[in-house]
Every structure is written in C-alpha cells, then in structure tokens.
C-alpha cells in the first residue's frame, strides 16, 4: 500500500469520507510524488495520534486593531 493510500485511510478513520482533497505545495527543491505522499502520511499520522490537534481559534485580536494605511 502506498504512503498516500495509508494516509487517506488514516484520515478516513478519523473523519469519514471526503469528496474533495486539495493540496498546496511549497516551492522547495527536490519535491516528488513519493516525497509529497510521505509528507501527507506524516500529517495524517500526527492528526490521528493527536500530535496535531485542531486549533480552537485563530487569535488575531492584535492584528484586528490595525488599519491598512496607504
């Protein structure tokens, strides 16, 4: 089984089915299908194990006080 398939199975076990999966890749050198699949597996492992947890809120209170000036 490929890293990607393993990752998708892990994510399905946590969240159920998906009908849309989208990726944003970095601009670094040396990217390949295999290395990206391995990275997705790293993320899936971390989510399922609880190492990567949902963020309760995205704290932007300080930023919200700013003005976009000219």
């Amino acid at each position, binding site marked *: 089984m*490929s890293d*990607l*398939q393993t990752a*998708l199975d892990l*994510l399905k076990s946590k*969240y*159920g*089915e*998906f*009908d*849309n*999966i*989208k*990726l*944003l*890749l*970095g601009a*670094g050198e040396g*990217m*390949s*299908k295999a*290395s*990206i*699949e391995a*990275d*997705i597996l*790293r*993320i899936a492992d*971390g*989510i399922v194990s609880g190492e*990567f*947890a*949902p*963020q309760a*809120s*995205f*704290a*932007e*209170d*300080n*930023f*919200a006080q*700013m*003005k*976009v*000036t*000219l």
Partner: protein
Amino acid sequence: MSHHVRRLKPLLLELDEVCPLDRPVLVDAHLIPLFKKHGERESIELIPVPAAQVRGLHLGHAPSKTAVIIYPRCEIHHGGQVDGACPGCQEARYTIAKELVHCLDRKEDKTSPDHMASDLINQLVRREWSESPQAFADGWGELWAIELLARFRHRLLVRGNASVPRSLRLATAVASNNYFLLASQYGAPDDAIKRAFSDGYMDLMRTIRMTVQLPVEMPALVHAAS
C-alpha cells in the same frame, strides 16, 4: 475561469460589508463565518502542523457539510497572537484562505482520493495547472487567497491614479523590490503581495471582476492620510 468568481461573488461582496477596506481581513472573524455560510459548511476545522513540503491541505465532504484545513503553523507565534508582519503568520493566513476557497469548488473541480493518487500530485509537482479542472482549481485557489486578504479595491487605492497619489509604501516597495511593509499590513506573504500589485495581475482581476459585475472602481471611503 469565470465560474470561480461567480461562486465567490456573493462572498466577496459580503466581505466588504463586514470588514471595511481599511481593516485587515481576519481568518476567524471574517473568513470562517463567510465560508461556512456560502460554502454550506457546518464545521470548518483548522489544524496547524509543522511546515514541510505540503504547505496546505483541504479535506472536504459536502454531504456532511464539513471541511478540515491543515496549514503550516508559525513556529514563533503558534498558540499566541497572530503578527501580521511575521512571515510564518502570513503563510498560515494565506494557506488557510487558499484552502477555504475550496469549500466553494464545483463537482468537476473536486479531487477525489482516487484522482489524487493517480494524477493530481504529479500535475502539481510539475506546476501543470491546466492539466485538469482539479489542478486548475488548485491554482485558482492561490489567486483567490490574494483577493481575500488584499482586496482588489484597496489595491486600487494603494496604486493610485490621477486624483489619488500612489502610496509611498508601494512606491518604496517597487523601488526596492521589497514588499515587506505592504505585506505586513495585509498579513499575507511578500511574494503574494508583490504579485497582487503587478500590472498583469491587476488587469486580470479587473477583467474577471467585470465579467460578473463586481465593482472595479476606486472606493472613496479610505483617505490617503488615514
């Protein structure tokens, strides 16, 4: 290309109602509620992870009205307050915005797990955005992330015209090829902001907006000295 902006049009209009042009667009206060409403999602979960080759990931399931968005956490401000001038925070905001856009994908834009395994990753690695509707939608997500965080009509003000002078921040950025000050204001990455202000990109966005009758005129509500 126009179907993406047709889907986004009501959201873009409402964004300008809930967030004045001279205020930064916020992920939690503005974007998440708007994408829940217009993307018909009851739940949008944000999961920060250490950055690597995969910068962002959107996992969506329209029938259950859920979306999970994985984004690169800022190693300096993770768990604390977002800093608009911090590249890590900018990257996080930009990635979330890009992945939120996919809550509005049409059926033909969506990437199934099978398609992702067979074709999409290779297309994305080779930057072949036009290879399939799914890869195309991925590319457009990045453009719309710019529009969400650095709105077109505010960019018109910054660029100026015969009656409103070009902002000093933009003049400085162009002269030095350093967009840090502008990027800090929008809380978006320097390279995205540089692209946003380029002539070609502004012309493209003007054309796209005109096709769906989104406003393309310079607003009067922000004063140059504000």
